[in-house]
């Protein structure tokens, strides 16, 4: 169970969020998805990267929420933002205009090149087995932010060999094809996937994602079993530093605030 606090004193989800937060360096401008990316980005802001600028697609720029938002447009995001712009401005000037260093995304399904599906699974497009919400801001974030980090739990259902639909572009051959057709993805694309088991990286754009780091207590075998493609493992696999007491306490304070907001019936 990924939400169980085991012998290590933290959950695998907490490890994943902490590992993701450490990838963000101070001063970066981050376009943040809701959920896990938002948790990692705010943890970074409240620990080692106080001057990080967090941008949510609802138009809030350099926002500093005290609890993790439940929706992309919570009032607290607006109240604690440096400025709030309209949604067209957000996508036109800030994202397409090239003002974002890192796009931080979650995903329902991902393939070995970092292509993402959030549209449908199974059946046909017209009559899907499971209709997913769609791409939201991700399709343009994936090609227009300087670089993409993805955070998601590793499982064969999520890490698949073939996507039913590409909602957001990754690297690899598909990106090359798009370039050959005259399109201009202005960012480098996905470079890092942080999971509850470890970290996957790619040489930007060209190669498939391979396992480069493992969290404490996780094995390469376990990661391979949780992956729908034949996951390759780096020659030297690093070991993630466990969460510090400080990181854990800040993260838990953030998520406690969110739990309270969720149950609030006011």
């Amino acid at each position, binding site marked *: 169970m990924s939400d169980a606090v085991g012998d290590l004193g933290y959950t695998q989800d907490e490890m994943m969020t902490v590992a993701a937060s450490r990838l963000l360096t101070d001063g970066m401008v981050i376009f943040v998805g809701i959920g896990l990316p938002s948790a990692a980005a705010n943890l970074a802001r409240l620990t080692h990267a106080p001057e990080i600028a967090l941008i949510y697609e*609802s138009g809030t720029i350099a926002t500093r929420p005290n609890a993790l938002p439940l929706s992309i*447009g919570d009032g607290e995001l607006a109240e604690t933002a440096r400025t709030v712009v*309209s949604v067209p401005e957000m996508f036109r000037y800030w994202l397409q205009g090239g003002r974002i260093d890192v796009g931080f995304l979650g995903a329902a399904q991902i393939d070995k090149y970092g292509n993402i599906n959030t549209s449908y699974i199974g059946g046909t497009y017209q009559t899907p087995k499971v209709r997913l919400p769609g791409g*939201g801001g991700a399709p*343009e974030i994936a090609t227009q932010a300087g670089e993409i980090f993805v955070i998601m739990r590793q499982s064969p259902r999520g890490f698949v060999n073939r996507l039913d639909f*590409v909602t*957001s572009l990754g690297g690899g051959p598909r990106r090359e094809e798009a370039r050959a057709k*005259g399109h201009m993805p202005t960012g480098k694309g996905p470079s890092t996937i942080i999971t509850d088991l470890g970290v996957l990286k790619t040489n930007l754009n060209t190669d498939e994602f391979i396992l480069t780091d493992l969290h404490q207590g996780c094995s390469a075998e376990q990661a391979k079993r949780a992956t729908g493609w034949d996951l390759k493992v780096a020659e030297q696999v690093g070991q993630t530093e466990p969460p510090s007491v400080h990181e854990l306490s800040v993260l838990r304070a953030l998520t406690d605030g969110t739990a309270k907001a969720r149950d609030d019936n006011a």
Partner: protein
Amino acid sequence: MTEILSLREAVAAFVKDGDTIAMEGFTHLIPHAAGHEVIRQERSGLTLVRMTPDLIYDQMIGMGTADRLIFSWGGNPGVGSLHRLRDACEKSWPRQLDIVEHAHAALAMAYEAGAAGLPLAISRSYIGTDHESVNPDIKRIECPFTGERLAAFPSIRPDVAVIHAQRADRKGNVHLWGILGVQKEAVLASRYAIVTVEEVVDDLGDTAMNETILPGWTINAVCEVPRGAHPSYAHGFYERHNAFYTRWDPIARDRKAFLNWMEEYVLSCATFADTWNKLEADGYV
């Protein structure tokens, strides 16, 4: 000329069967009360446009008002799926729903192009994605100056825009602040506009200079509907009712539970005030 109308009068006057309507709101200021009124007046054959369809479009789709949905993200934020939207897509219940799937950037720019009176919008969208294979509205265009291939898509020009704002005065000037979403663009792109507000005031007087975002002559009807954005929020008036979004999940999951809920809290209520009183009496709020 803006008229101050009841919500019932405004929907009766401006929303017709078969219309394309945009009820916008990006998490903030979602016009829920107006959606209920469209359901009560049994509109059908609608094309619904919205970047982020949430509970109110879930209800409208589940009640069979819509044939078509133009959208870019359809979920229950922080909770999960929109089960009525899914049931319509997956099982054609209660009727077939054609979907036109976009990404946020493109749909936002399509509204903007509509407001600007242009036939199309262009952007660096849909690079390497599959949207084009299922959405015939997405075409490619070559920049005549650089040769870059760009995405082109038709502007959004709804028959009616419906938004919720904090305040308006009696001339229909709209005072809206906080998260702005794409409401201004939706109104200016549409032929008619209905605005529900928390309060109609005689004079917006001391309003900050950038907060009266739409002058009265862009608005056809203003309706005073306190709490009309619930369970979303109206900055400065009330907060987002997160618990309601969670409670909606099991109701929407089951067709019968959904129909019962709609009967009780929408169809058998004459106005949104009745709905609110009932929600209050039953411990929802």
